[in-house]
């Protein structure tokens, strides 16, 4: 499984890199799907088939397909590709890239010095054990995670509501809502 782990990890990194650098949104999303599949493979190689299956079903299967549809429906055209291209001028990304490269060198040195590239061992984690864990010691976290989702939902519903019909025609996003008479 070792070679599978390293290969899929490499694929994940390369495809994520393309997600960031690609100027076409749909292509970038396709790379993101590849990246998620590769991460699922990493999970599988580490002995967590349940997490791998979830990764594919939930992320690659459901969420990403939704993303692709939305992007296709939004119909982002040549203009946004041009804009993305402008944003990705060398001047903009060379600085962070150099910094990240330095971090990479540090990591590589640390790898050679401190840790060792040992083989992957350990037990395979089945769905049953994950379930027992989740509803045993981690029960409170499951409940709190549901509140996290609720909070995210409330925030998203509030901020992302379609208010076209309720906004007065003369107000735009750039003008603050005027209510009080003494507003400056």
């Amino acid at each position, binding site marked *: 499984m070792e070679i599978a782990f390293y290969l899929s990890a490499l694929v994940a990194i390369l495809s994520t890199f393309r997600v960031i650098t690609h100027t076409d949104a749909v292509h970038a999303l396709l790379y993101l799907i590849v990246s998620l599949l590769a991460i699922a493979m990493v999970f599988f190689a580490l002995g967590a088939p349940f997490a791998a299956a979830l990764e594919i079903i939930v992320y690659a299967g459901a969420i990403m397909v939704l993303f692709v549809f939305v992007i296709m429906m939004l119909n982002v055209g040549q203009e946004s590709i041009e804009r993305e291209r402008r944003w990705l001028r060398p001047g903009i990304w060379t600085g962070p890239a150099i910094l990240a490269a330095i971090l990479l060198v540090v990591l590589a040195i640390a790898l050679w010095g401190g840790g060792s590239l040992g083989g992957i061992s350990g037990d395979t984690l089945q769905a049953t054990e994950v379930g027992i864990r989740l509803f045993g010691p981690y029960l409170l976290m499951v409940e709190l995670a549901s509140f996290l989702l609720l909070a995210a939902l409330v925030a998203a519903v509030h901020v992302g509501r379609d208010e076209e019909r309720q906004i007065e025609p003369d107000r735009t996003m750039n003008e603050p809502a005027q209510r009080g008479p003494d*507003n*400056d």
Partner: protein
Amino acid sequence: MNLTTSHLIALLPLLIVSATVIVVMLGVAWQRHHFLSATLTVIGLNAALVSLLATLTVTPIQVTPLLAFDNYSVLFMALALIAALACTTLAHAYLEGFDDRREEYYMLLLCSVLGAMTLVASRHMTALFIGLELMSVPLYGMAAYAYRNRVSLEAGLKYMVLSAAASAFLLFGMALLYAESGTLEFAGIGASMNQGGHDLWLLAGIGMMVIALGFKLSLVPFHLWTPDVYEGAPAPMSAFLATVSKLAVFALLIRLFETAPVTGNDVLHTVIAVIAFASMIVGNLLALRQNNIKRLLGYSSIAHLGYLLTALVASNSLAVETVGVYMVTYVLTTLGTFGVVALVSSPYSGVDAADMSHYRGLFWRRPYLAAVMTVMMLSLAGIPMTAGFIGKFYALAVGVQSGLWWLVAGIVVGSAIGLYYYLRVMVGLYLHEGEQSRRDATDDWGQRSGGVMVLLLAIAVLVLGVYPQPMIALIDAATMATG
């Protein structure tokens, strides 16, 4: 793993706050009523506050491997609940004039408090992460609450994007720690650190976590978001961000460092000391040129967190007590300052009245409100007879006790710089009114809950400044159960 009655009693504050979220949500689903939602929220928060007394009867207790309820976490939970109550009363007055849905705010606030309480009690990385996210995710919504207003939307988006980056660091750090120590409990990680041998990975993991928590606390290299978010978010939300989120994250940081000590490690020790020093100096210097009170408070909070970090660097017998005392004074003072800003900006009408010119001559229009602002500014500057002095005194004492002379020098220099801009705000209150159009609090501000709360805060700041013994005794009793 079974939950017994005493476990449930310990969990009572969390359960009550959770139940309140559901009740408020169902209430909104049934009928939108601003006053009803606010009242339910206040009742829930008060009930949770009272239930902390019941929790005290069973502390210290560990509930599941994730949460530890000891006197320390009860103290910070109480502080978070009080701050949330204050923000609720402020928000009620503020949202009266809000021409959009108002009730969601209370749900978001309650969820965020729930996250803060989890964070304060967590003794396990999972609880840390879920707690931190549960606290932060509602904050995005709260910062962008007046989303038709461009600055508010900008504040929400900025906070969300940068917060997500910080969360990535946090998770990466946790993964490294887990890979090296094989456990997610703070105590287990501490034990494996003491064994030695894997210093590099553990150091990288803790370092990444420090980056993430430093972002949440807006310490200096990670502070760039602070002024924009403080300025853009509506005033009651800024107050919440400046108090509840800061105190919960700091309480957690102290617990993490007390149970998994890294102070033996010189590199990390030096890094945190440098962060503390830079926060004090940079925060104060940047605040000098601000004309917007909310931005000014943002920069000054960076400096205050820098002073607080001295206690973490020292990590001596006085450290936990210092953090408690400083946090209480900082929270009271910050709530009071943002309270005045919120009252002057209430009811909501677009952009908050945060420019210095809005406060010019406030004394001649609203003498009591100006007096409150004066007390708060004096307390922020750390003048004797106010609570801020007690906090600063502790920060200096803890620095001197550990012989951290350049951090002590940083506190002194920072306070001296700080005095200038706090006094500048104060002087403006007593000048003659300018020509500019002005914003003012409503005539009956003193009879409304927000106004009463601000007056009480001012009294508390003065009383604690003169007679701090009860507070110190209370914080002395708030010991942490390590391990």
